[in-house]
Structure formats: C-alpha cells, structure tokens
C-alpha cells in the first residue's frame, strides 16, 4: 500500500499527523482531522514509532478468504495489535512468519518490519508491514520514528 510505510530502511509505518492539533491517524488519510474538535483539513504524512507493545494477539488457523492471497498449503500465522506509546495508536499487523502466539505476550515489545505479502501475476513482490519481536540488540537502538 503506497504511502502506508517506508520502503527503505529503517522501515516505519507512515501515519497522518495533524499540523493543527497534533493528533495521529493510521492509515494515513486526507480530507479532515479525525479529532472532531479540530477543523484542520491537512494531515502531514509522518513516520510512526518503529516500536510498540503488544495489546493483544491471535493466530489464524484457517486460510482467510479472498482477497487475502493464502499460501497453498496454508500455514497458520499470527496477528498482533501493537500499541505505539507516543502516537497513542494500536495498530494491527501480521506477525513475522514463524513467530506464533506461544512466542507472544501482552506488553512485549515489537518492532515493524517489511515482508512479502504475495507475488503478483507480474512476478513482482507485493509488500506489507509485519510485527516482529524486538530483539535485545535492536532494543538498544534509538527509536527515531516518532520525532522524525
């Protein structure tokens, strides 16, 4: 989805930020600030914090219906809703392949990554954001998303 995430490292989700009241929104959008007490009509594309904490998670054990492009045979995968503290947003995403519910818990730190959603008929990969557990080494790096 063009404009929903950066395609070069460091990968971040891109949200909208209201230049007037300062609130955030994901996915990014135009037209009106979501804050009903704010009359602004411009939202600036803004990289969001790369890290957040698990609000909840699940695993899909059945292949979702189209328009999801499911692998055949289908491999169960996890979804996580991750809370970004600075932005006050909880954002849903697939969890990186191989990381399942047993590896997750509410409150654990995650960071955003990109992965191939599926390969299109043109042979080109289609990309999507995925949540991955923040590794100890990556935890020490600065979270530069929110202020960028």
């Amino acid at each position: 989805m063009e404009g929903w995430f950066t395609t070069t490292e460091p990968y971040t989700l891109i949200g909208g930020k209201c230049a007037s009241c300062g609130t955030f929104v994901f996915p990014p959008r135009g037209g009106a600030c979501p804050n009903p007490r704010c009359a602004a009509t411009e939202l600036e594309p803004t990289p969001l914090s790369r890290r957040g904490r698990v609000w909840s998670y699940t695993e899909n054990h059945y292949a979702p219906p189209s328009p999801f492009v499911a692998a055949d045979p289908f491999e169960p995968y996890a979804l996580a809703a991750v809370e970004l503290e600075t932005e006050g947003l909880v954002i849903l995403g697939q969890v990186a392949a191989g990381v399942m519910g047993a590896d997750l818990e509410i409150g654990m730190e995650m960071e955003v990554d990109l992965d191939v959603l599926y390969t299109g008929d043109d042979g080109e990969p289609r990309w999507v954001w995925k949540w991955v557990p923040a590794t100890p080494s990556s935890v020490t790096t600065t979270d530069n998303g929110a202020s960028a």
Partner: protein
Amino acid sequence: MSGDRDLVVLGAGMHPWGKWGRDFTEYGLVAARAALADAGLDYPDMQYIAGADTIRNGYPGFVAGSTFAQALGWIGVPISSSYAACASGAMAVQSARAQILAGFAEVALVVGADTTPKGFFAPVGGERRNDPDWLRFHLLGATNPAFFALNARRRIDVYGDTVDDFAQVKVKNSKAGVHNPNARFRKEFSLDDFASSPLVSDPLRLLDICATSDGAAALVIASPEFAQRHLGTLEGTVRIKAVATTTPTYPQVRLELPDFATDSTAVVPAPERGFKDSIAHDAYEQAGIGPEDLSCAEVYDLSTALELDWYENLGLCAEGEAAKLLRNGDTALGGRIPVNASGGLSSFGEAIPAQAIAQICELTWQLQGRSEGHQVDNATVGLAINQGLFGHGSCTIVAK
C-alpha cells in the same frame, strides 16, 4: 411503566433460522405475515414500512424496504431501507420509531431478512483499495473471528478468564436454544465437544464462533394511541422504551472491526465511556432505568468471549468480573439476570439484518410469557444489544 416516548410492540414474527440459500425476500415475507397475524392487523393497515438491508443480495438487498413493500403488494406508504451492518435491524426500528414519534405514521412494519454464503464472511467482490473492509482481508487476513480472538485473548491474559469459561457460554446458550423453535442449532453442547472443535483464531475454536445463517424477523410497532384503539387497552402491552444507535466518541480506543488501528489518544484522552459502554448507557438514559432493573438480556454473542464483554458493558458486573457472573450461574435461565435465554447467536447463527429485530421479538415473547421451555420467570424488562461494524451501536429496551 410508561413514558411519553413509548411505542407499543403489537406483533412479532420470525422465519426460523437455518441454511437453505433461498431468496431472502421469501423469508422476510414469512416473518412479516407472522408479525401481522400476531398483531391482529392486515398488511394494508400499515402506514410505514422499514426494511433492514443486506449487502450480499444485490439491489433488492440494498433497498429492502422497497423489496418487501413490493413483494407484499404496493400500498402507497412511505418506506425506508437501513444499512448499519449488524445494527441494521435496530436502525430500521429506529427509523420507524422516529416516524411514529414525529406523528408521520401511527403503525409500522419493520422487516429484516438475509440469506448467507457458506464459510467466513468475506468482503463484497471486486478490487476496492479504498475500502477498509476489503483491505483488512487483503493485507492482513484479519477475518471477523480474528478480531473476536484479540478481545478473547485480552480476557484471558488481563482478567484471568479461561477457554473453559468461553465454552461454558456456549453450553449455557445451547441449553436454552434447544427449546427455541426458531433457533437453527437445537443441540445441547458440553465442554467435551470443545476438545474436538478445530481452532479457528486462537484462543477461539469453531464452536466459540457463531455461524452465518438464513433467517428473518419482523415487528409491528405502533403509537400508544393506535394500540389503545386497536386493543381497547394498553394493559400488559410490551413497550419499546429505548433504541440507542450510538456511535463511538473520539478517540475510539478499542480496536474494532474492520479498522487497522484505533484512534489516537495523543491529543484527546480516551472518553469516560468506551463505545460499547456508551451504547448501553444511552439506552438506559432513554428508558430511565439501570442494569439492576433488567429481567433478561439478549446480547450479541458473535463469539462466546464477546458475550462476557457485554456483561461488563451492560453494567451487570464490574470490568473483568464477567466470568464470575457466568460461573455463578447468574446469567443462565433461573439465574439473577438470564442472558440469551433465546439461545443467542450460538443457537441461531447470524442473519445480519434480521438479528437485532429477532432479539426484540425474543424479548417481546419473554415479557408476554410465551417462551415455552426457555421462559424467564416474571420477565418485565428486557434489553437487546449489539454492534455493527463501522461504528454502529444498537441497543433496545422493552418493558411492560
């Protein structure tokens, strides 16, 4: 009890829930005729027709009010067609209610019916990259059960609920539903049945998730003046005291179908009441009652765990205490506040535009003492609540 914005439920009717794949209009007509017969009125007596829409049945589904009016025969009265996802039925009732309260009509027919495909609900076809409902399937495979599962997981990890608690919701509801002639699944389930039920979206198994069904429900509602003329008395009539079709208040801080994210709390703090709490609160305010006044409730158990969320949203117990209420038997038939004495969606499956209307039919029959085999003793006040995706609240209170 009576209030100056009360309406009277003169008739309630259903087509039983099932899975046949026939034209939804056919089911709707059966329900409409049953409601008219229950009211002792003829179809041409109706002064307004409200249809609850279904989006999976082409144009006739989008203009359900017109579809039913044409199928029953044109009688030259105003109509409306309401779409609000799972809350479509409540929106249709609200449309008719507003017409009657405004004095544009005295008696109205409300109808909702659906026919459903097999398997997971999927978005409407085509490639629609501006439609969040399409995108959540395409990018994430975030099915409805996946959203239910996120809430269920919170209950386990935050409140200490167990998967057996969830299963007990189904056990309870199936025990009541066995006796409901309009229910689709009339089989008692036990905890043992869950062990062999396949995991769909962890921690929810297939038996935790409601099926999709065909079905129809209809109501005839009228002003008290019309009811008085028709019945000769208002004694013992079932009144609609409240219909709340509330939206969330910014910021919506609970991740809800079909959204990718919550609203932001960075600038505006979370409101005093979350979305689902506020739906119930608005209905209580309209009716001038509180949770302690309820005899019974019909809540939207799209998943077993979701029924427990509603106990808390309704104020039947404090946040995190719902499983305790269930374990005490308080919400079973014979308990302090029976919930889903109809058998709930567990026993019905969901026929989207009909379901909120069916909840009101069930409560009407409970208040009239007509729910043989699953009757709540001395029921005088009932509440039905649900929520349609894209921010549609739906809560109705009836009393006699």
